[in-house]
């Protein structure tokens, strides 16, 4: 116990805290810039079971920020090299290596063995996949992400009160951004100390969750800017849309294509200026995918209502060859359009860009002119 003496003498932590760490199972997805400090500090602190998922091998350009690896490790699988170094750091820790991408096929099996999951990945498809899996499996998720000199940290899906779970990634960002949106699915610049800082906050949140000390970042998004040293905390509120965006069960999770999350921008989105020409056409059906209780009710043009939340049970069918979907802001309908397009590649399917509220506003503006 001498190894842990400096944390055991902390009043709030004590030998009780140390026992909890030793009994904990933590899965770190991604052994890169964020994953390295997370793994190092969790191993050093004495987390009993550490799992790590990474498909990659160590490369020279990793070493500027991925501080677990040495120059001699270039070319080795990251999980192998990381396990080696972590064992030397702390032989008490049991390490499980998964040299693979986390996919819808292996995620449930892997995650099920752990109490807490840490998102240390570097792409949106993985982030949404991990989030949804953790919601479905009821696992707390410690999220971290970086961009240039800034980072974000949050604790998702942790039990906060009487079995109520804290908000998750989709309560902040309901759907993944498009492929050509800047910073998505492309390489961005990063100073090594940034993932170091964010990873350390993540490791600290993991330790807090395990030992029950302090206040974890539940229902909150911590932002960090290393250039200005502005650290801010934003409150996240649960959104009624979130549950309908996550697969309803494990079976539909396994069928979901998360790679589409980094989807190319297609002309699936219909601009409001073109919307009017589709009214009252024989070959076109306009569909409101909002929940039936959502306002405003639309009476400007004929349409039908099929809430997207019901689609996993039963996908609506339409005889028309062109289908235009709309919702409040254009996000849910875009998701629905992509969902429908996979089922019916033969049909022309559009989502009204920016949603019905935007369209309505433009109509009011026109009338006032």
């Amino acid at each position: 116990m001498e190894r842990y003496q400096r944390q055991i003498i902390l009043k709030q932590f004590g030998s009780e805290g140390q026992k909890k760490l030793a009994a904990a199972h933590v899965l770190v997805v991604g052994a890169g810039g964020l994953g390295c400090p997370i793994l190092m500090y969790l191993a050093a602190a004495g987390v009993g079971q550490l799992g790590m998922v990474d498909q990659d091998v160590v490369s020279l350009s990793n070493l500027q920020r991925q501080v677990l690896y040495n120059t001699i490790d270039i070319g080795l699988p990251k999980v192998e090299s990381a396990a080696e170094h972590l064992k030397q750091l702390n032989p008490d820790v049991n390490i499980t290596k998964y040299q693979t991408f986390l996919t819808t096929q292996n995620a449930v099996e892997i995650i099920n063995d752990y109490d807490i999951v840490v998102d240390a990945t570097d792409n949106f498809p993985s982030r949404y996949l991990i989030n949804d899996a953790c919601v479905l499996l009821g696992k707390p998720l410690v999220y971290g992400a970086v961009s240039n000199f800034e980072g974000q940290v949050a604790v998702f899906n942790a039990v906060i009160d009487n079995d109520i779970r804290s908000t998750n990634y989709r309560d902040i960002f309901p759907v993944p951004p498009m492929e050509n949106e800047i910073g998505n699915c492309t390489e961005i610049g990063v100073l090594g100390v940034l993932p170091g800082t964010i990873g350390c906050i993540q490791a600290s949140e993991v330790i807090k969750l395990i030992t029950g000390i302090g206040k974890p970042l539940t229902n909150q998004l911590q932002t960090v800017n290393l250039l200005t040293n502005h650290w801010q905390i934003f409150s996240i509120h649960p959104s009624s849309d979130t549950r309908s965006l996550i697969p309803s069960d494990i079976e539909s999770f396994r069928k979901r294509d998360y790679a589409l999350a980094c989807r190319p921008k297609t002309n699936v989105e219909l601009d409001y200026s073109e919307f009017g020409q589709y009214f009252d056409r024989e070959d076109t059906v306009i569909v409101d995918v909002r929940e039936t209780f959502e306002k405003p009710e639309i009476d400007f043009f004929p349409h039908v209502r099929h809430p997207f939340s019901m689609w996993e049970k039963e996908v609506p069918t339409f005889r028309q060859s062109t289908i235009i979907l709309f919702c409040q802001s254009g996000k849910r309908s875009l998701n629905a359009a992509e969902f429908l397009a996979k089922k019916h590649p033969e049909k022309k399917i559009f989502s009204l860009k920016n949603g019905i509220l935007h369209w309505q506003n433009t109509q009011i503006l026109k009338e006032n002119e």
Partner: protein
Amino acid sequence: MKIKILLFGQLKEILNADFIEMKDVGDSDILMEKLKGKFPALTDISFRVAVDKNLISENIVLSESSEIALLPPFSGG
């Protein structure tokens, strides 16, 4: 009435500023409408709006003391 809007992540690069100021924005819907009118690049990028450190999903009345932040998602790791 002038309102200060803090930019995060890639939005700083897109608008080439750390913050922007907008006049005559009574509520968050008007703010977004005006922002997207002035900076069309904002229509093509995902971000959340926070008012006084709360992520909002409905229209909210703004005052001069309101602190606005535009938060895009980060993917890097």
